[in-house]
C-alpha cells in the first residue's frame, strides 16, 4: 500500500508514531494522517461518489481513530486497523442513507445462470460507441455500477482491485472471514463484469 510520506517521515516507523499518539502527541497523529489521508479519501470517495461526503467521512474516520488509538495493540498493521474504522464509518453511512431513501438501493441478487463458469465471455452485442467515451462519462458508468453493489461488496472490490490488499487484510478491515471476502469478491466481480463489460472492452 502506497502512503504519502516525506523521506524524514519515512524514517519514523509507523509503530513508533502510534506509540507517540498513544502518549498524546498530536504531531505524531498529524504524520499518520498525512500518510493516509489521500488513500482514505480516495477509498471513501469511490464508495460514496461525492467529494464533500467523502471529506466528512474521512474526517470522522480519523477522529474515531484518534479517540480509539489507545486500544491499538499492533496485532495488525496500522493501515488495516484504520481501514477497519473507515469501512465501519462508510458502510454505516451508506446503510443509513439507504434507510432514509426508504428502499433497496443495492442489488446483490444475481442469478446462478449468470455465474456459470462455463458460460462464454464475449463483449455485449450492443453497438460500439462511435467515439471514445469522455473520461467523465466512463467515470459516471463506473460510479453507477459500483453504486448498485452493497456497501460490503463495494468495499471488497475496491480494497482488492484498487488498494491491492490481500484477502486476510480485507478480512481484518471488514471484520469477517477470508471465505466471506472471497465470496463477496466473486459476486462483486460478476456484477461489475455484467455492468461494465461494454465499457472496458471498448475503451
Amino acid at each position, binding site marked *: 500500500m502506497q502512503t504519502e510520506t516525506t523521506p524524514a517521515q519515512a524514517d519514523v516507523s509507523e509503530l513508533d508514531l502510534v506509540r507517540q499518539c498513544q502518549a*498524546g502527541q*498530536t504531531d505524531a*497523529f*498529524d504524520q499518520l*494522517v*498525512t500518510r493516509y*489521508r*489521500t488513500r482514505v*479519501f*480516495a477509498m471513501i*470517495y*469511490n464508495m460514496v461518489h461525492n*467529494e464533500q461526503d467523502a*471529506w466528512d467521512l*474521512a*474526517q470522522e474516520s*480519523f*477522529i474515531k481513530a*484518534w479517540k480509539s488509538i489507545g486500544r491499538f495493540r499492533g496485532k495488525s498493521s496500522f493501515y488495516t486497523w484504520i481501514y477497519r474504522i473507515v469501512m465501519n464509518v462508510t458502510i454505516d453511512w451508506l446503510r443509513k442513507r439507504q434507510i432514509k431513501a426508504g428502499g433497496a438501493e443495492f442489488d446483490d441478487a444475481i442469478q446462478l445462470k449468470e455465474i456459470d*463458469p*462455463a*458460460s*462464454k*465471455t464475449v463483449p455485449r452485442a450492443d453497438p460500439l460507441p462511435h467515439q471514445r467515451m469522455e473520461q467523465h462519462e*466512463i*467515470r459516471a458508468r*463506473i460510479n453507477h455500477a459500483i453504486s448498485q453493489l452493497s456497501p460490503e461488496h463495494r468495499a471488497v*472490490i*475496491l480494497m*482488492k*482491485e*484498487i488498494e491491492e490488499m490481500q*484477502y486476510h487484510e480485507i478480512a481484518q478491515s471488514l471484520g469477517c472471514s477470508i*471465505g466471506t471476502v*472471497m*465470496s463477496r*469478491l*466473486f*459476486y462483486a*466481480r460478476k456484477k*461489475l*463484469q455484467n455492468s*461494465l*463489460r461494454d*465499457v*472496458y*472492452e471498448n*475503451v
Partner: protein
Amino acid sequence: MKTFEEKWTAWLDGQLSGKELAEFESSLPDLAAAEAEKRDAQKLGAFLKEQLTTQAMSNEEFFSHQLHEWIARESAARHRSTSTWWTIPRLVWSGATALALFVITTVLLMSQHQPGEQSEYLTQILQSRVDPAANPNATISIFESKTDNKVTVLWTEGLQSLPADYAAK
C-alpha cells in the same frame, strides 16, 4: 471446505496451486471458457485500477488543519473536565479506602475481644433429684425462653426442702 465461489476467486487471483489447482480446473465443465472469464475479470480489475486511482484530495493541508483543530479542542475540553478534584475515579478510590479501613478496624477489634464470662442467666443443672419420700408432691419443670436461648427457667413446686447435694452454677 471451500465453496465454489471461494475456489473460483482464488483461482482467478492465482492463489491456487498444485493439487488444489488441478482438481479445480478438472472440475470445470469448460476450461477454455473459464480461462476467458478469468481474463475478462482481470481486465475489469485493471480497468478499475486505472480509472479509480486518479481521484485526488483537494485541500489536503486544510483537511489536516481541521483535524488538528478538532483534536486540540477535544484535548482542552478533556483537560477542563478532569481538573475537578472530585472526579469519579477519585470518588471510587475514596470509597474503597474507607471501606478497607472499616474492615481492618473491625477485624482488629474482634480479634482483641476476649470471650466473656458465661451469662449469669445460663444455668447448668448439675444435679437434680427429688426424694419421693421426702417430697411426694414435688414437680420440677424446665423452660427455655423462645426469645433468648440463654435463659433457662427451673420451676420447682411442692418441695418440702432443698436437697443437700443440690448445686447449680
